[in-house]
């Protein structure tokens, strides 16, 4: 209590220095968390690919065809792919909630695909464990909808603008945040970033039946076609496919996608990551220097405390508590700010989590401890009386 009071007195007396230090802590936490967040996104995406069966897959992007109009043509082209056992697609459809004009996307995975792409769930079960019972379709909702629906909740929606085709759904699982769903830009190149992009407004399901028990069809968009096969001679086969379908579609393996992704990452994320990391280093170095200076300015005060009956331990505690207040307060605010702003602006190309924050805080505290120790060891070496005289 006494120590806390003295620490606060200390803070008040040198509030200007401490405000600067607090700002530095703020920036350091911000920069390092951003940097780690980007690193995490990168590894997350890589892991997602590595852990799913996507690594066996080949992605097909039909350049100029919208197969929603001509399913037969689509099938005709697919037949040209020799040796293919498993070919999957994702149909997309826009639906409307029953009681509002709000719409959402529904991605319907063709049979078996959902087994190959298992996303992490925050609760519930994955689609492949659930079947349609009584025309109620099992669906997985994104994390952002979890404030509204829980596992077991029913959602009623319409699959058409006129609100005639009614669909009953049951939430069986909720995706982990961040939310990654397979989606692709129409006519665009296949890009891993798109493939695994985040969508806050997308429900995942298998095939969907309406109330009458009829299957609903969506749009098979270019790029949302995936073959997953443990091909013996993958490279040769893919080359053959590419020749076969030349001019109609482009094929890419996961390796090619990864390569493209890596180049993109290097251009975009890693650059920011490095800049943020350098910013963190600079600010932390400044922080250490600042803390060192401010401690040196206080060394005389501690000597006087010591002379008047404070032990070394008490002096160190005062220093420590002052430091902790100066570090933890802005750090927590900074982190909360970062967290809230990424959440609110759904600037979801970042993963901000508490572990990164704790790492940052730990690093900053170590920097502070070292600078405090340097100062206190000087106090210990010279003795309080020499200090009182020297720092007059």
């Amino acid at each position: 209590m006494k120590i806390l009071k003295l620490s606060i007195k200390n803070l008040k007396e040198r509030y200007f220095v401490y405000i600067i230090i607090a700002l530095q802590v703020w920036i350091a936490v911000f920069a390092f968390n951003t940097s780690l967040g980007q690193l995490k996104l990168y590894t997350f995406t890589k892991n997602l690919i590595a852990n799913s069966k996507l690594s066996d897959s080949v992605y097909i992007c039909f350049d100029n065809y919208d197969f929603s109009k001509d399913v037969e043509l689509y099938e005709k082209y697919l037949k040209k792919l020799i040796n293919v056992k498993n070919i999957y697609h994702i149909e997309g459809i826009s639906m409307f909630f029953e009681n509002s004009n709000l719409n959402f996307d529904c991605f319907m995975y063709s049979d078996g695909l959902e087994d190959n792409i298992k996303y992490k769930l925050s609760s519930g079960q994955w689609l492949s464990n659930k079947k349609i019972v009584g025309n109620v379709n099992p669906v997985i909702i994104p994390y952002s909808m979890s404030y509204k629906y829980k596992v077991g909740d029913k959602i009623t929606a319409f699959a058409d603008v006129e609100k005639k085709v009614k669909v009953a759904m049951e939430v069986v699982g909720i995706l982990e945040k961040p939310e990654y769903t397979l989606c692709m830009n129409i006519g665009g190149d296949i890009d891993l970033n798109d493939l695994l992009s985040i969508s806050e407004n997308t429900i995942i399901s298998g095939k969907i039946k309406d109330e009458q028990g009829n299957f609903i069809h969506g749009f098979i968009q270019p790029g949302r076609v995936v073959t997953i096969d443990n091909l013996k001679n993958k490279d040769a086969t893919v080359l053959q496919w590419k020749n076969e379908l030349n001019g109609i579609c482009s094929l890419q393996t996961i390796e090619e996608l990864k390569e493209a992704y890596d180049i993109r990452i290097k251009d975009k994320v890693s650059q920011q990551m490095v800049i943020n990391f350098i910013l963190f280093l600079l600010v932390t170095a400044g922080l250490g220097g600042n803390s060192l200076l401010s401690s040196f300015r206080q060394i005389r005060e501690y000597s006087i405390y010591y002379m008047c009956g404070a032990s070394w331990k008490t002096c160190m505690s005062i220093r420590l508590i002052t430091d902790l207040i100066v570090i933890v307060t802005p750090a927590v605010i900074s982190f909360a700010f970062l967290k809230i702003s990424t959440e609110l602006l759904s600037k979801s190309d970042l993963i901000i989590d508490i572990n990164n924050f704790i790492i940052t805080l730990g690093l900053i505290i170590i920097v502070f401890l070292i600078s405090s120790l340097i100062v206190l060891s000087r106090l210990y070496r010279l003795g309080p009386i020499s200090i009182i005289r020297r720092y007059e």
Partner: protein
Amino acid sequence: MSFIIEAINISKIYNEGSNSQVHALRNVSINIKKGDFIAIRGRSGSGKSTLLNVLGCLDRVTSGKIIIDNIDISRNKDKKLSLIRNKKMGFVLQDFGLIGGRTVLDNVSIPLVFGDVKQREIKGKCMEALKLVGVDEFAKKIVNQLSGGQKQRVAIARAIVNNPEVILADEPTGALDTHTAIEILEMLKHLNKNGKTLIIVSHDNIVCNYCNRTVNISDGSITVS
């Protein structure tokens, strides 16, 4: 055997083992009785301050014993030493050793804050001490706004606020003019008369007129006691 402080064969070596090793005290023995007014004299660098610091538990001896109230404290832990400094010792320094940016009251209260005095008693005790040295009117002033003599009075008030038995003063008049120096010495003498034990390090010859014992120290050893 009622010595307040007893030093037996103490030595102090700074930076022992390194190139910059200094043998500041060599086998010094000294007894201090309750009510003594002792002056420690000697040339610059002879080890006066060092002696005062180890007697006041501000620093540790390299060898020998320091006995305070019949207890050998030379091997005591930091916490116990700080307790002794807090309860039994009051320090007065040449450059006052005050925190310049704080008020007089703040400065004087420091020993009470680290002791076990209740929060609501602190102010009263401080005012009492300040009244005793005649600067109670400056209680709310910032230390930096005071003159040298006033600062030293504040420092003395701080030294006596916890009612210690011993006051250790390292050149308390060194930064003051003769007139003010005499005022300060009179005050210390007055404290001595009221039962405090005083140990003063000083170059100043006038100090000898006030004390009842002089210890001369040369090159770390006591020459005349």
